[in-house]
């Protein structure tokens, strides 16, 4: 395997740089995926039948906390990659752990939010609007949950194998995924919640 020392570790082999490029293409596919979910949501937003509408169930408090957590975790995963490029394994692991913990917090708040909705009689089965809301939020939440498991897996590999071209590559790709989830959340924050509470 040829290692190109002039590039950061995560790009250093041909395979590595292919993987990063391939993951960008995959994120490209995630854009129409979420765009379609937003499409469904916007078509459904006023079709709440006998159930509650958005303004009746959205709450600003948990929303701000979860947004803060996700924005901050996106910042810390950026710091983790930065530390990785300087070879600081401990700092890198620390930032990754913070990232994943905040991800976990985000998932916790989302589950709590869903339970509250269900408690208020707003379930997946209630109306077209609620179906589309649950599936849009749920798909994002599923991505975060998957990201959490993935991140734990990478941390175990980092811990066992150290910062190698392979683990650096995985961490970098994971960071792309995590930032992307933040981008999606920004649109959910703005066009689902804030627009719904306007």
């Amino acid at each position: 395997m040829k290692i190109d020392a002039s590039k950061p570790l995560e790009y250093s082999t041909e395979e590595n740089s292919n993987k990063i490029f391939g993951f960008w293409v995959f994120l490209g596919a995630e854009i129409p995926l979420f765009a379609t979910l937003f499409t469904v949501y916007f078509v459904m937003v006023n079709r709440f039948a006998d159930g509650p509408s958005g303004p009746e169930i959205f709450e600003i408090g948990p929303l701000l906390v979860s947004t803060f957590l996700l924005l901050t975790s996106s910042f810390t995963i950026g710091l983790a990659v930065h530390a990785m490029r300087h070879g600081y394994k401990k700092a890198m692991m620390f930032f990754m752990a913070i990232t994943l913990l905040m991800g976990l917090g985000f998932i916790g708040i989302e589950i709590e939010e869903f339970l509250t909705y269900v408690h208020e009689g707003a379930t997946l089965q209630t109306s077209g609007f609620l179906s589309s809301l649950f599936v849009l939020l749920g798909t994002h939440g599923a991505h975060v949950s998957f990201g959490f498991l993935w991140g734990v897996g990478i941390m175990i590999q980092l811990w066992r194998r150290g910062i190698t071209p392979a683990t650096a590559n995985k961490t970098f790709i994971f960071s792309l995924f995590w930032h992307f989830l933040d981008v999606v959340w920004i649109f959910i924050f703005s066009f689902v919640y804030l627009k719904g509470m306007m």
Partner: protein
Amino acid sequence: MIKQLFPIRHVMGYLASLVLSAAALIVIYGDLSHTANVVVLTITALIQASLQLFVFMHIGESADTKKELYLNIAYALFVGLITLFGTLFIFVWGWYA
């Protein structure tokens, strides 16, 4: 050490994203028109998304695939936006009434 661990670009990017999120709250606490609200949301969201893309995701970093990455995102946005606005065109704005 601290300076190395907290690069200024990232810190600024992070603070900007917090500020922008806070600024977007004007649509619920402020007293703007509906159109102005939507404009505010669109602008703050787009800036935030670009922040992530350019500052945190380093999209412009790799010289040999830079063009391909931009094309990739552009194509994805094309399909996503067409799906979104095309569907709204069919079912909302252009629906036979």
